[in-house]
């Protein structure tokens, strides 16, 4: 370090440290406003409640009864309503088909297909 006064190097070094730490703090502060944004957007975009709701109502609709017999007319009415309303209000194509219990297979099976162009949900639901 010839030709250079090497007094007070610590002060200069501390000056650097302080200025750099100020910048890092500024960056942290800058980023703190967007904390949780990705999470919130992911939650909003994923149609969890739409899928849950449509699944619930489809399963409910399969068990509509009149005098303890399967109410075929109302079931087809309700399921047509579900298809139409999902398409027009929730931008989703919903497809429903079901098989009724037989002696060899005593369960109701409901095939649920949901597609809103971004998310696809398929389920084969079987009564216990």
């Amino acid at each position, binding site marked *: *370090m*010839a*030709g*250079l006064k*090497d007094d007070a*190097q610590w002060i*200069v070094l501390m000056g*650097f440290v302080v*200025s*750099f730490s100020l*910048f890092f703090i*500024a*960056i942290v502060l*800058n980023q703190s*406003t*967007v*904390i*949780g*944004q990705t*999470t*919130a*957007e992911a*939650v*909003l975009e994923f149609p969890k*409640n*739409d899928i849950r*709701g*449509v699944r*619930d*109502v489809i399963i*409910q*609709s399969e068990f*509509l009864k009149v005098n303890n017999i399967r*109410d075929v*007319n*109302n079931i087809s*009415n*309700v*399921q*047509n*309503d*579900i298809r*139409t*309303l999902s398409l*027009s*209000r*929730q931008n989703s194509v919903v497809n429903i088909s079901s098989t009724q219990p037989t002696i060899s297979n005593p369960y109701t099976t409901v095939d649920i297909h949901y597609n809103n162009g971004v998310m696809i949900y398929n389920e084969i639901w079987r009564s216990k």
Partner: protein
Amino acid sequence: MVNTDGQLYTIEGIAAGLIMLMTAYIVVNSTSVYTLGDTHISDMQLEVLGNDALNLMNTAPNSTTGKSPLQTIVETDDAETFRSMFLTMVNNRAGSDRDHIQFVANVTYVDTGGSVSSTVLSDSLRPFVSGEHAVRVSDWVIVEKRFPDDSSGKHAVLVEVLLWRD
């Protein structure tokens, strides 16, 4: 032989360069002013809250096979019960003070001609003037009623609620 003069100047130069780079980075970043409202966190919370409230209203008491409160409300077009029930649920907070969430609820149905329409079910007596930052939640109900008239038969309708914090 490398001259060791001016080492501190070199360090200073590098540090100044870095500081300028970072300043440029922060300045470029700050051209878009990002407020908390843009991050959708409160939207997400409001949507979760509204969905929970609707789900709760659409559950029959004690898990019986009877009608849920929401089913009865839609069938009898009972705006007052919906209002008090929904507001009680969404505005509930720990402590005695209440939240200020407002809503407009619609019933969307398929009419006899097969086309989709909506009718107002209830609101919180606060007009929706479209300046609000509202979120939409919905739930399905099977009712023994055909909208808009009252002919029999079961039909699925969609209860849609717009809610916003006032």
